[in-house]
């Protein structure tokens, strides 16, 4: 089936080359980072995780979001999603590839990363995160590929693939729960020390992931002969509506607990993010864009006419992606580190090389996605003829 990725229009190759060029640029800068160390990033003694880990956190959500397509299809036999489950599964593959890359490039000694396998440490959440991410990657790759292959030859998929498909649906929330646990069990980091961290992660994941899928569906329909189906897009729209509203509510619950209790250590992080603390306010405009944008998108999506119109739905999806990205990919990690446990403030902002390496990883992910989607679409086009 892979040969389908090797034959395509000029537009397809232009996209592949563009993404490969970005990935290459990121790779060159990564080599520089390997040579001189992580000092080329904006991270510091006080903010010891930055953009890389934040992107990983966000993309785990995108990966888990694919399950919102697979679950209705496999568990409730919702046939409308039948045509797009493979899109969800391949999106998960691309997102996990990015997650793993982000973790590895964030290591100070990436060549030692096998130490995690050689000295397995069950008390470390990072060990379990490695396990859940890799298993989820394999599950989606196998299930997606096998489903597509059996679709191509018009035979029912083998039983074990069905079993793996069910298993991957159950597994998907785990990748997000475990990633949330990386943050939520740490003493002295009051911003993260909250039981609602994992539910918040899940809610934003189940909004951001399907938003990506809706956008891809619309793009695919426009540029190829494969139609994912109007009904499927509408159902995804409803899923996004509920999950983004839940996500927004979860944030408000957090704000209530923090500010009604009046515990300074808890309030300081929120103050830093939303109003600034002791004159430090680098993230304030971003956080307000995220918060107001998320509120607006909740209202917009709740209006049926707006959700039914594919143009305005696409706009809402973009807004969901941007606002959740600011929340997880920028605010969550930095907000937890500022102020530090000694109540000192060191601000963080990604440097240019750091941002370009990040862009390179995103490009690599989209390259993987483009190739996988090309295979899926070509086969669907073939079947449609």
């Amino acid at each position, binding site marked *: 089936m892979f040969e389908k990725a090797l034959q395509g229009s000029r537009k397809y190759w232009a996209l592949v080359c563009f993404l490969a060029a970005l990935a290459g640029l990121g790779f060159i800068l990564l080599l520089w980072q390997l040579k*001189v*160390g*992580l*000092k080329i990033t904006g*991270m*510091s*003694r*006080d903010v*010891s*995780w930055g953009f890389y880990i934040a992107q990983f956190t966000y993309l785990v959500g995108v990966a888990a979001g694919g399950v919102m397509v697979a679950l209705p299809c496999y568990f409730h036999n919702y046939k409308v999603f039948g045509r797009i489950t493979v899109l969800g599964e391949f999106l998960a593959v691309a997102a996990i590839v990015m997650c793993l890359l982000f*973790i590895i490039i*964030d*290591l*100070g*000694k*990436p060549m*030692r*990363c096998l*130490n*995690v*396998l*050689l*000295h*397995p*440490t*069950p*008390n*470390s*959440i*990072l*060990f379990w995160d*490695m396990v859940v991410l890799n298993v989820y990657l394999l599950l989606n790759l196998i299930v997606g590929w096998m489903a597509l292959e059996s679709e191509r030859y018009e035979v029912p998929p083998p039983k074990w693939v069905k079993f793996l498909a069910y298993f991957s649906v159950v597994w998907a929330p785990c990748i997000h729960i475990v990633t949330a646990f*990386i*943050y939520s069990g*740490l*003493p*002295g*980091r009051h911003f993260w020390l909250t039981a609602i961290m994992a539910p918040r992660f899940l809610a934003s994941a189940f909004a951001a992931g399907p938003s990506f899928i809706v956008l891809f569906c619309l793009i695919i329909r426009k540029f190829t002969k494969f139609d994912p189906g109007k009904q499927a897009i509408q159902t995804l729209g409803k899923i996004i509506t509920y999950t983004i509203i839940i996500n927004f509510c979860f944030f408000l619950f957090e704000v209530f607990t923090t500010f009604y209790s009046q515990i300074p*250590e808890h309030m300081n992080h929120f103050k830093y993010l939303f109003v600034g603390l002791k004159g430090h306010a680098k993230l304030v405009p971003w956080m307000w864009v995220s918060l107001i944008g998320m509120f607006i998108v909740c209202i917009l999506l709740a209006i049926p006419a707006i959700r039914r119109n594919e143009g305005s739905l696409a706009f809402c999806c973009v807004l969901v992606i941007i606002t959740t990205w600011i929340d997880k990919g920028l605010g969550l990690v930095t907000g*937890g*580190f500022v102020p*530090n*446990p*000694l*109540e*000192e403030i*060191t601000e963080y902002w990604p440097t240019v090389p750091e941002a370009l390496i990040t862009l390179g990883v995103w490009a690599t992910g989209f390259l993987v996605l483009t190739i996988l989607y090309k295979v899926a679409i070509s086969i669907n086009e073939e079947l449609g003829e």
Partner: protein
Amino acid sequence: MRINRRKFLKIASISVLGFGVKPTIDLFAGHEAKAKIKKSPKALRAKRWAMVIDLRKMNEEIAKKCIEACHLFHNVPHIPDKKREIKWIWTEPFEHAFPGQSHEFLGTELIEKPVLVLCNNCDNPPCVQVCPTKATFKREDGIVMMDMHRCIGCRFCMAACPYGSRSFNWMDPRPYIEKENPEYPTREKGVVEKCDFCAERLDKGLMPLCVEASEGAIIFGDLEDPESEVRRVLRERYSIQRKPELGTGPSIFYLI
């Protein structure tokens, strides 16, 4: 022997699995090889090493001596960029060292006091809990150790430490070492480091360097031994710990 594709894949996948499975089995079997290295008869021993810092005796000058003694011996680089600095022991104003125990009406004596801070070598260390490779581990005598050859530089321990006691080598530290001490190894970029209560000196029967340099302002001893000097001062005087409410069980006490 000819190997067809199917067979090759089978063998390859089993080998890859084995790579991860073998250490896991070892782990649950619980027979990790324990090196039997005899300790020197001169080595100082304790059930739980602890430090008591007397803030009444401590002043700017003594603190500086302690820091210098430690940083010179351990080849701690002097990096001018505050965001990237490496420090094993340093001073903080009282309000930063004890954020939960400070208030705006403190006497000037305490507010102006330089508080010497270092790794608390906690009894229940969060950094050991989160380390994915056991590069950070706790010895039987309570010292939280750092294996810089095992460390992958994930910095999870830095996120977990509620005292900001760990430093990461954002770059090669060697150009920033003014006078290298050949008795102690230098570090590479990409690993985390911290104070280890001078474990290598204790094994030679010597006290930690900061204790020696402190002119009696720091007392070091066995917390589990009721007859020890640290226990005696803790009985006689009022002491506080940094963030005791977090349950990490810091092994450093401050007399005020």
